[in-house]
Each structure stands twice: as structure tokens, then as C-alpha cells.
């Protein structure tokens, strides 16, 4: 197989460029409508309605869109608005909402291992994110171990094993259909025995309205806590940036059942804005650990709210 390309690691500059390029299309759209708004004339109510729609189109959600538009409405009264001013306001708004939540994952557990349970609906990129997180921790000189807890999807275990081989990270796995909780327990024993700093536990994707499958996550949690009452130390929900308002339902249910402590947003390298992250931040206030901007190992980076917000409105980083 030709998978060599995906092991390549990008540098920081490359990442920023890609994030900006990814956000470019929406930026273009947003600045276009903003330019229309404030070219030479003053803002009119209809312009603000159009802006509100644009924000909705970026998946920001009706409530956040309304709040931002209201701020602009006020600004127009003050009479200070030009294009840069409008952008500034939007950036400020979005940054103000997101800034308190940007918090990279930190390995703090004592005794080791620091256990991170990774959950989410199907197809959001959990397994890939685990590989990227593993790589990130390795760069910080931590000893990492993976647990292939997606025992349901065909070849999910193999997928994680391939990543493990590439990274030189041991993978604890069972046969397909193994009890995921039992596997997590065993992985923790092995991580302890071999003195690992971090144990990343993969899980099968599940829709949040499937109560039976969600209970399984609660069980994995309970089982991990048997060996270390503070484990899992982090429960990371992987959100797909292309997801719409349903992300809010995902966060709500996963937080309730699996005790999600933070979010990683993937697939931000497309045209999807992940605007729902802003709505989610307002509603739930969960930390945002990182964003995924590509398929390569280096394409996971700590979440930078200002860069996110600036890229969103098309300002240079």
C-alpha cells in the first residue's frame, strides 16, 4: 500500500497556511458579504439580516448568529463601522467566546498512566485522532500506549495497529467483537506494568441516541476507575467539523453518559467552518483541546481561538 505520504509531519507554518487555506472559502464568502454591507454606505437592517444568514450558513447556530448581529447593530448606531471594524467585532466576539476554552491535553496523572478515553459518533475520525495525539505526546517525550477499543467496526483494530507500527506505539487489542470494557481494563494493566505515561483508549463510533451503546461507554469508564479511581483522566469527544447543529446533541448526550471533559474537532481543512463550536462553547463550555486539519500525523494542533476566529473572517494570521 502506498501510505507513505500520510506519515509525513507538517511544520507549524504549513499548518497555519493550511488552516487559512481551509477557511479561505468561507472567509471569502463572509468578507464578500461584509464588503457589500459596509462598502461606502451605512449599514441597513436588511444587510444585518443577510449577515445573520451568512453566519448561520457557517453553522454558528441561530443564537450566536443573532448575538453577533446584535453587536453590529449597536456598532452601527455608534457610527464607527467599516469593513475592518466589522471584522474586528466578529473576531472579538468569536474569540471572547472561545478563548477561555482553549486548553491542550496535559499529562498530569499520578500515578501513571494518564488515561484518555476517546469517544464520538461514527466516522468523526477517532482512530486517526488517537494516532495524532499519540504522535503529539511522543514529541513531548511521553511513553504512549494505544488500546484498540473499537471492537465493532470491521478492521478498526487493524487500522489502529497500522498506526501503532508507524509510530512505534504498542497496541493492546483483542479479537473483533471482544468486550470493549474488558479490553480497556487489560490495556490499563499492561500500561501500568510497562510504565507508560499515557494510555489512549479508542472506542467504537456510536450515535448518541442509541442508549444501549451509550451505556457501554459508561461501563468502560467504570471499569477503568477500578484500577485508578481518577481514571479516565480525560474523556475526549471527537467532533466532525462538517456536522451541523446535531453536534450540540452529541455533546450533551456524550457528556451526560460518558462524562466528556473536552473536545477535539476534526476535518477543519475542508470548507466546513465548525461554527457550531462557537454555539457549543456558549452552551456547554467544554475545553477545546485541539483541531484536526488534515490526514497526516502532524495535522493536529492545539486550538488557537484567535487564529480560528481571524481565519473565519478572512483576516491574515
Amino acid at each position: 500500500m502506498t501510505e507513505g505520504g500520510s506519515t509525513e509531519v507538517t511544520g507549524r507554518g504549513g499548518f497555519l497556511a493550511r488552516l487559512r487555506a481551509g477557511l479561505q472559502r468561507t472567509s471569502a464568502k463572509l468578507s464578500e458579504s461584509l464588503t457589500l454591507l459596509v462598502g461606502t454606505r451605512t449599514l441597513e437592517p436588511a444587510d444585518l439580516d443577510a449577515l445573520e444568514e451568512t453566519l448561520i450558513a457557517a453553522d454558528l447556530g441561530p443564537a450566536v448568529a443573532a448575538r453577533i448581529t446584535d453587536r453590529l447593530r449597536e456598532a452601527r448606531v455608534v457610527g464607527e463601522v467599516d469593513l475592518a471594524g466589522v471584522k474586528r467585532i466578529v473576531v472579538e466576539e468569536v474569540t471572547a467566546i472561545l478563548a477561555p476554552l482553549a486548553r491542550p491535553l496535559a499529562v498530569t496523572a499520578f500515578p501513571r498512566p494518564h488515561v484518555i478515553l476517546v469517544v464520538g459518533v461514527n466516522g468523526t475520525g477517532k482512530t486517526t485522532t488517537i494516532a495524532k495525539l499519540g504522535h503529539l505526546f511522543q514529541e513531548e517525550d511521553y511513553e504512549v500506549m494505544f488500546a484498540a477499543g473499537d471492537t465493532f467496526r470491521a478492521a478498526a483494530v487493524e487500522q489502529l495497529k497500522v498506526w501503532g507500527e508507524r509510530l512505534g506505539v504498542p497496541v493492546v487489542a483483542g479479537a473483533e467483537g471482544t468486550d470493549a470494557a474488558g479490553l480497556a481494563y487489560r490495556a490499563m494493566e499492561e500500561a501500568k506494568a510497562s510504565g507508560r505515561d499515557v494510555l489512549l483508549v479508542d472506542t467504537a463510533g456510536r450515535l448518541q441516541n442509541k442508549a444501549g451503546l451509550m451505556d457501554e461507554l459508561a461501563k468502560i469508564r467504570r471499569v477503568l476507575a477500578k484500577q485508578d479511581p481518577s481514571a479516565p483522566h480525560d474523556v475526549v469527544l471527537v467532533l466532525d467539523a462538517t456536522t451541523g447543529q446535531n453536534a450540540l446533541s452529541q455533546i450533551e448526550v456524550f457528556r451526560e453518559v460518558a462524562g466528556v471533559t473536552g473536545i477535539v474537532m476534526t476535518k477543519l481543512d475542508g470548507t466546513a467552518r465548525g461554527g457550531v463550536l462557537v454555539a457549543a462553547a456558549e452552551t456547554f463550555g467544554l475545553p477545546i483541546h485541539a483541531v484536526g486539519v488534515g490526514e497526516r500525523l502532524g495535522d493536529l494542533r492545539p486550538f488557537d481561538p484567535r487564529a480560528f476566529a481571524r481565519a473565519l473572517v478572512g483576516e491574515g494570521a
Partner: protein
Amino acid sequence: MFESLSDRLNAVFDKLRGRGALSELEVRAAMREVRIALLEADVALPVVRSFIDRATERAVGAEVLKSVTPGQQVVKIVHDTLVETLGAEAADLAVDVPPPAIVMMVGLQGSGKTTTTAKLAKHLAEKRRKKVLMASLDVNRPAAQQQLAILGEQAKVATLPIIPGQQPTDIARRAREAARLQGFDVLLLDTAGRLHVDEQLMAEMEAVAAATAPHEVLLVVDALTGQDAVNVAASFTGRVPLTGVILTRMDGDARGGAALSMREVTGKPIKFVGTGEKLDALEPFHPERAAGRILGMGDVVSLVERAAETLDAAEAERMAAKLAKGGFDMTDLLAQFRQMKRMGGLGVLASLLPGLGKAQAAMKQAGVDDRTIGRMEAIILSMTPKERARPEILNARRKIRIAKGSGTTVQEVNRLLKMHADMATAMKRLKKMGGMKALAGLFGGGAEAGAAPPPGLLPPGLPPGLGGPGLPPGLPGNIRFKR
């Protein structure tokens, strides 16, 4: 799926229903609320705009405002516009061509292409009697090819042997040759997930399409997708000759906006929807039925089909004959309970019935769930054959014995008896009214009554705890008429 959008829309319509007259202003206000409901359901903005424009234009037309029941008129207009947006007719898959028919699956990462490919293969093999070959062209995601191979084993569908290192277009050519030489009817090509802005991968997809000239190119879209669905659909449409869309994860609790957007944005019909993780959880898409579900009118057609699929024909004959004689005893009730379970339990039934939102809520409130059915089953099973045939002989002592035997209480036994009596009465009435026609009338009532389950569906005078499961009476007769 659709439930919460349906709830929102019905809240809007409830305000209009039963009104004697509507002003243009009121209609426009209602349409604004419909707009927000659609946006919250992640329907793409351009689609919302054109939808609202069309519906408003019709709704403020003279005939609505002068109509005796303007509220109903508006609901009908929204329904018609929904059907239009979803595409009027169910679309078929073009696999009845000189073999091998080539079907190419494309989409973003994580939209569910590989699973859907296997589901489609199983569907074609089992329902259309095709000899199917699957090939994975995904050389990017680790173990993606193995995944399809494993799924092939599970679905008992052949997969192309994996040659490590081979490039997608070469695999596609090899697959086509293999399909031709080995006499396969259909070749399914599962491609790698790609972002629509990834020029290299999009070009690769074009090359595969050019090399294989597929008869069907299906875009696999996650039903949870938000506003970006427009960009995705537009970019894929521009690069390959799409012929249709498959929506996955329709069993999630998303409000189904993507379903509404896809037809309009791609100009191509939604052909299938994925409704679960199992390999048989793939259903053909019926626009009209989906529109009915969105407006809370239920999906009676699907219900009847599901009944037909799960119903034991001999059993139905037996029961129909018995009903014709006017008998409906506990054994029949037991058979009905089991039939309901086979059809997917109360939740599934309620979701297909008219007025689904409120009926479901009422059932939840009353604590009626599949476990209630189980308890009622247990009660019947604790009766002697004689008691089942003639429940009227049940006296206090017998009831106490049955309650003990089934781990329930005498009250519950009484409730079941009352339910049985009511249903027997309903059956008799149904028989008098004349089978299918009457049944259609009962179901059809849903559109009129809108939010509430049509009264005829619920056996009259049921105790509150058993308000929900009134469905069974008509089913056996119904199926008989269908055949």
C-alpha cells in the same frame, strides 16, 4: 430522524389549524417560523430560501385566504413543497444493464462509504438477485481494504483480492476485468474518503470515473452534516457524473436537514438511506413518505410494508378467518403482541404512525414501552388454553392465580382484559365497515387531525396506562387485502 423538525413544524401549524380566516401577514409570520425550523434542522440556506419563497407565494395566493380551512391549505402547500424539494418519485438504481454494471461510491471521509458499499452489495445480492463484486480503492486509510474484505465475508459478497501497493485506477481496471471475466452482474467500487478541496484526490476520483465509466456514481452523505453539505455536494457534482445520493446515519437524532438539501443541491435523487449499523439497515428512499413523516402525518405505507415483510402469512390467514367469524380471543391478542415486537417494537411503530410526535410523548408519559407489552404477554401466557379462548370465565380466583403466575397484579390483569374487550369491539366495528377501506379511513384521518392520533386507531375507553398500542386490530385484515 425528522421527529424534532416535525414537532417544530407542527407547533407552527397548530396555530393555523382550525382558523376561520388567515391574513397574508399571519401566513408570512408562519412561514418565518417554518424558515427557522428548517435552519435549525440544518437544511442548507439556499434550499431554505427557495423553499420559503415557493411556499409563501402559493400560500398567500387567493385560494388559501378565501378557503374555508386556510390552515389546512397551508399545511398542504408546505407538504407539497416538501415533496417537490425531496424529489417526487422514488428513484431506482441502474443495475439492469449489460453486465457488469459499475457503481462507484464517493464522499467525504467518515461519511460511511465502506459500510454503505457492503450494505448495497447485500441489498443487490439478496433483493435483486445480482451477482455482486466489491472492490476497495481506498489506499489512504490504514486497513480500509481489509475492512471491505471483512464486510464482504459478513455479507457473503465477493471482494476483489487485495494487491498491496496498487494504485486506485489500476485496482479499478483490475476489478472491471475480474467482474467481466467472472461474470459478475454488478461491480461496486468503494473509493477513499476525500475532502472536496483536496485537488489531488479529486483528480484521482475523476481518473477512476474516466477509467471505468460507471453506470452509477453515488454520493454518500452523512445525515448529520450541517450547512457545508451544499459545498460538498456542489464540488462532487462538478467533478464526477453523480447519479444519486445515499444518506447515512438516518437513525441518528439529527433533524434531517441534509435529506431536504441534497436533492435540490445535487439535482440528483436520494436513492437509499442507511438506518443502522447492521448490514441490512439500508432502505430505498421514498420522498413522499419522508415528507409525511416530517409533517407528522406518519408513514402508513412503510408500516404496511414492514408488516407484510414480518407477518407470518399462514398466521394471518388463520386470524383473518377467525376474525371473519367474529372471534378475537387472548391467543390472537398474544399473536398481535408478538407481531408488534417483530415489526420493531412500539418505538418503531409509533414513529411510522400519524401524529407520531404526540403519540410517542403520550406513550412515554404513560410509561407504555416494550416492557409493558412483555408483561401483558406474560399475563396471557399464565392463562389456561380455556381461559385464553373464553376470557369471560375469568373470576377473581383465576385472576389472582394469573397475576401470581405472571408476576403482575390483578389490576394489570384487569387492564389487559379491558384492552382485549375494547379491541374485540373495535374489530367488530372494523368488520362491519368493511376491511381495508375502513382501515384506510382510519389512517387517513391522521392528515386531518394532524397532531393527534386518529381516534379510531386507539381502542375506545382504554385505561390511561394503555393508551398507546392500539395499532394491532387492523393489521391482519389489512395484509390480506394487500395481497
